[in-house]
């Protein structure tokens, strides 16, 4: 297969936005029945390259070759008609329509003048079955979870008989199980001769599923070759341009008698979590693992007063506290950093200053807001958190994902939490920024705070946590500590087969 001619290729592709060149003489190609992984740090130009390839954005110069012949895609649909389907990082689904309506959006089947609903229903079911997605085609998309939306996007692409399937970080919102299903589907598509390009920040996935890997850095291709010839370390080094083998900082040396800062007993969040109990000691990082949908996020949101919850007893520094609103949590030094920086974390159309101080405005003057003080705080935050690439007054939506995440972290730190709950702290950000965030979280713990990290990335939980609490179906399934923190043990607890290590439950 691999010596066949490329189905689609970019040649000498250059893309400029104003004076800034985001793609520089990029050559990219993929053959039928081949899976190409496109990797690189945020801002390396992966997404732009993919959008140009699929006809979403015109090239400034260079050529797109389809079956060896030069083409120009005049519109959004031209690419799709040529059989190139792009699945966006941000979903492209009509939220108010049903799953079935979305799958057939723009190419509805008709019988005479009317819609052929029966046939569309049946085909939708077929596509969904192929990705092992049990969602009812009649459900409204807005009621689906992120991972279900991703599966619907893929089902939609299946319905379009894609010759080239381009996926921008398809697994960022999927659980491990769902990723497996996606990979099975990718293999099936590959066997059927579809060319597949995807980006991912998870290098283990790249090793597993891709045939070839193309590494981009600063808008240019810096490496291209078979995956088999490259270790994950080599990939990371190529991406970042420096060695990143020490991704995780050394774990804390917390004495066993460190005081308990947070004690939770019998925390319940209606419909999501039941009877969650744990202790958090000063200076430690507690990881919370579990499948997406296991109630991790909801339990912690409930704890921080962000959604209705009840608890038998919550103690902070040994004193019982009642937390009903986010303000209560903050007044006790307990703060939650959301997993969804775009929808719940940052005001995307506002600037950095407004975002930085929103949660802690009372610090910046009484009734009136002291802008000078805000500017000073922003200066300090940009320095401390190494936030790059933002004009101070331009919208936060223009920052890259990694810088948005750093800004969000800076925002939360403005309220000076002593107990910090961070939910998916590195979702969709590059490896260099990840390393910075890990180092920062560890420093916070070493400085005498207590940190809870919720993460779906197994390596992250293992690499970062002193102890790991595993949740399953809204309950605590197990607590792991020290050497016992292994991928196998976490999966066993998360899947409900961890009976043999119950003895370790705290």
């Amino acid at each position, binding site marked *: 297969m691999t010596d066949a001619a490329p189905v689609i290729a970019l040649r000498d592709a250059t893309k*400029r*936005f*104003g*004076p*800034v060149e*985001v793609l520089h003489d990029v050559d990219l190609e993929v053959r039928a029945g081949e899976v190409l992984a496109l990797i690189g740090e945020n*801002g390396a130009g992966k997404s732009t390259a993919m959008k140009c390839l699929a006809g979403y954005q015109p090239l400034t110069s260079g050529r797109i070759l389809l079956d060896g012949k030069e083409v120009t895609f005049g519109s959004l649909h031209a690419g799709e008609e040529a059989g190139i389907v792009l699945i966006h990082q941000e979903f492209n689904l009509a939220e108010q329509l049903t799953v079935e309506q979305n799958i057939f959006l723009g190419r509805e089947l008709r019988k005479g003048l009317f819609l052929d609903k029966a046939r569309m229903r049946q085909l939708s079911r077929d596509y969904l079955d192929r990705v092992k997605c049990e969602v009812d085609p009649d459900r409204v998309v807005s009621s689906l979870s992120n991972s279900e939306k991703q599966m619907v996007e893929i089902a939609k692409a299946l319905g379009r008989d894609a010759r080239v399937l381009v996926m921008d970080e398809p697994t960022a919102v999927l659980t491990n199980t769902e990723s497996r299903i996606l990979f099975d589907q990718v293999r099936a598509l590959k066997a059927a001769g579809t060319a597949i390009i995807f980006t991912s920040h998870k290098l283990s996935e790249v090793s597993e599923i891709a045939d070839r890997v193309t590494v981009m850095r600063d808008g240019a291709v810096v490496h291209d070759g078979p995956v088999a010839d490259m270790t994950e370390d080599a990939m990371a080094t190529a991406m970042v341009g420096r060695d990143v083998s020490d991704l995780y900082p050394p774990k804390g040396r917390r004495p066993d008698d460190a005081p308990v800062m947070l004690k939770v007993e019998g925390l319940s969040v209606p419909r999501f979590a039941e009877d969650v109990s744990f202790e958090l000691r000063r200076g430690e990082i507690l990881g919370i693992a579990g499948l997406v949908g296991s109630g991790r996020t909801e339990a912690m949101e409930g704890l921080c007063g*962000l959604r209705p919850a009840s608890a038998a007893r919550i103690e902070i520094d040994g004193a019982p506290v009642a937390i009903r*609103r*986010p*303000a209560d949590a*903050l007044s006790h030094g307990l703060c*939650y950093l*959301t997993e969804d920086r775009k*929808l*719940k*974390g*940052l*005001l*995307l*159309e*506002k600037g950095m200053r*407004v975002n930085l101080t*929103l*949660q*802690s*405005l*009372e610090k910046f*003057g009484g*009734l*009136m*807001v002291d802008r000078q003080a805000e500017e000073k705080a922003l200066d300090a935050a940009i320095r401390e958190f190494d936030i790059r*690439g933002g*004009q101070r*007054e*331009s*919208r936060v*939506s*223009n*920052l*890259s994902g990694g810088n948005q995440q750093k800004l969000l972290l800076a*925002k939360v730190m403005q*309220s000076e939490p002593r107990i910090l709950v961070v939910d998916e702290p590195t979702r969709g950000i590059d490896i260099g920024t990840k390393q910075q965030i890990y180092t920062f979280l560890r420093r916070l713990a070493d400085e005498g705070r207590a940190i809870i990290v919720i993460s779906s990335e197994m390596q992250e939980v293992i690499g970062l946590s002193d102890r790991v609490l595993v949740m399953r179906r809204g309950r605590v399934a197990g607590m792991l500590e020290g050497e016992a923190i292994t991928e196998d043990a976490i999966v066993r607890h998360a899947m409900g087969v961890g009976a043999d290590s119950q003895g370790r439950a705290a």
Partner: protein
Amino acid sequence: MAAETADTVPARRRLPSMSVLGPIVALVVLVLVGAFLNPNFVSAANITNVLARSAFIGIIAVGMTFVITAGGLDLSVGSMAAFIAGLMILVMNWALPTLGIGIPIILLGMAVALVAGLLAGLLNGFLITTLGIEAFIVTLGSMGIYRSLVTWLADGGTLSLDFGLRTFYRPVYFGGILGISWPIIVFALVVILGEILMSRSRFGRHCAATGSNEHVAHYSNVDVNRTRLLTYAMLGVLVGVATIMYVPRLGSASASTGVLWELEAIAAVIIGGTVLKGGFGRVWGTVIGVLILSLIDNLLNLTDLVSPYLNGAIQGIIIILAVILQREAKAKG
């Protein structure tokens, strides 16, 4: 994305964007055209007249700016003003035999207007925030209710303030200090306080955050419901203030009092550059919006270039133009 900003931001530094300049330029052009067509247009008497008449809508529009910035809407303000005017007149007429004509009865009337406005605003706010009903629906409902109540109170006719009382109360609209009439002074005070509150205070920041993305606001420890409730309550009180200024002008209230005020207020807010879906508001812009609308009205009455009956059409065109300009500014930013 970063690239796109890099070249637009310096451009914006050099010159304020169209969404900032647009309303100001429009106002200046309007004044110049007016002065050219009829020199009386820029006379002190005419300007005082226009400003005083703008004051009612203007005071309400300042409150509306906060409601819209926080992502809400209030269609009931015109009816609410009529109802409060009717209530004020009834209470004052009723208290006349006991209190007699004097300062106390005027203060009683004012207190009634402010309290009624506050309660009406709180009611709207409660239904919208606590019960979670769409603002459009709630205020459409209360608009009908207040309009109907004032018609009922007036028994289909007109509620008139006692003649003696009216004469005593008149200076609140027609009088003033240093030649500036009270409505203009009050309007100016409301604007200054409103502008400070919007752009400098924590409350203003919370309104913008709530309207911009209420989830982010909630996760950032902003009490979204309280913020919204306060905007409606504030608007209600300002409707009360506007009514206090309005009643001495005519001394009566009827089913046709305050008709379409809500739309004029909303239009002024939008022309001024506040975003209809919330998240960004500016009080000074609203003032310009109010002035543009009343100047057009005034200009059409003073000149015979276009029939004054076409006033509504011209206002409509201006509103649509304002929103188109806003959108272009956004697309560039």
